[in-house]
């Protein structure tokens, strides 16, 4: 079937200016133009977006869930990165 070489694209929408694009799903399309048109039809029928990004799924490099600990736990013990770590007297305002 010739359809198999229609690649998978990930779709991102910006719902309004001032907000970032957000992943909403995927679709198949022969090329980027078609991916944008299809994304418009299936993901923005009720003014959900004013800007669309499409990215070939195969182009996305993702961190692996197995690396979750080595990647993300080191920040857990760096409590001094958070403002609540510091004791500032109540008398000092606006801080």
């Amino acid at each position, binding site marked *: 079937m*010739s*359809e198999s*070489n229609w690649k998978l694209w990930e779709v991102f929408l910006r719902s309004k200016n001032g907000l970032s694009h957000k992943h909403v799903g995927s*679709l198949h399309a*022969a090329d980027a133009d078609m991916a944008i048109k299809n994304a418009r039809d299936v993901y923005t*029928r009720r003014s959900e977006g004013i800007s669309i990004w499409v990215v070939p799924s195969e182009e996305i490099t993702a961190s692996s869930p197995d690396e979750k600990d080595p990647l993300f736990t080191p920040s857990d013990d760096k409590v001094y990165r958070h403002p609540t770590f510091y004791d500032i007297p109540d008398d000092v305002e606006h801080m």
Partner: protein
Amino acid sequence: MGTNVSLEDKFQAYVDAENKVEPKDWMPEKYRKTLIRQISQHAHSEIIGMQPEANWITRAPSLRAKLILLAKVQDEAGHGLYLYSAAETLGEPREKMIADLQSGKAKYSSIFNYPTPSWADMGTIGWLVDGAAIQNQVMLTRTSYGPYARAMVKICKEESFHQRQGYEVVMKLAQGTPEQKAMAQESLNRWWWPSLMMFGPSDDNSPNSEQSMKWKIKRKSNDTLRQEFVDKTVPQAEYLGLTIPDPDLKWNEERGHYDFGEINWAEFYDVIKGNGPCNKERIAHHVKAHEEGAWVREAANAYAKKQAARKEGDASAA
């Protein structure tokens, strides 16, 4: 084996704590299989479900009715896409899902194997069939698999329009001439029981349900969802002055629910097996549309290749 058990226990604890599972997370193979089966079946239902309603697009009684029906059917295509997209995150190729639908290996909701001989059916389907789907889908917005839950949130937002437009169609008929009211009643008579069947077998005949509930894929049993649907729908029928075709239907003060008659399970299993009034027609139509669209897919491919080659040519020339 030992590590397997502990991975599964860890997974269960994770799900029990109301955490969502995402595509690349470890999951039991049976969890993945169950999801692929359920999500693709749900996607197929949305796609096949376009057929009974598309039957009336060219014959809608007004331009307003036609626009609404078109928008509704287009939404269902979108729902199919969101769901195929969710199933693909589990590693199931789209082509395989389509092939399984066309070969009969994969199922879809048996409700769509009933015909739509009357305009009133466009109302009844929105009111009851989308209504029953909503009952199930609202529960699924909290399913444990992230992509499925997110697809459901989007779908549920759109379904409310489907049910309301359907109820409006039935209401116009029910409040119209005696002939129109009779049309609405006749349609309700045909769709009531198949709508109750949409929730699946009764709990004691639904062996996979327990595991699905444990994994929080499902969060309510078939019978619970069915009861909720009946309780919501009976007053809506009363408002219209229509009679639900069930002599055993009555309010049970003690239970705080409506009692209702026994579903014809023989019919349910027969339609699932492929012997419903429209099973063959639905699949034949899907295959035909797919085959007739082959040249479009090929042309799009050829065009994309040409464009890509041209771009490359431009780049090397510069």
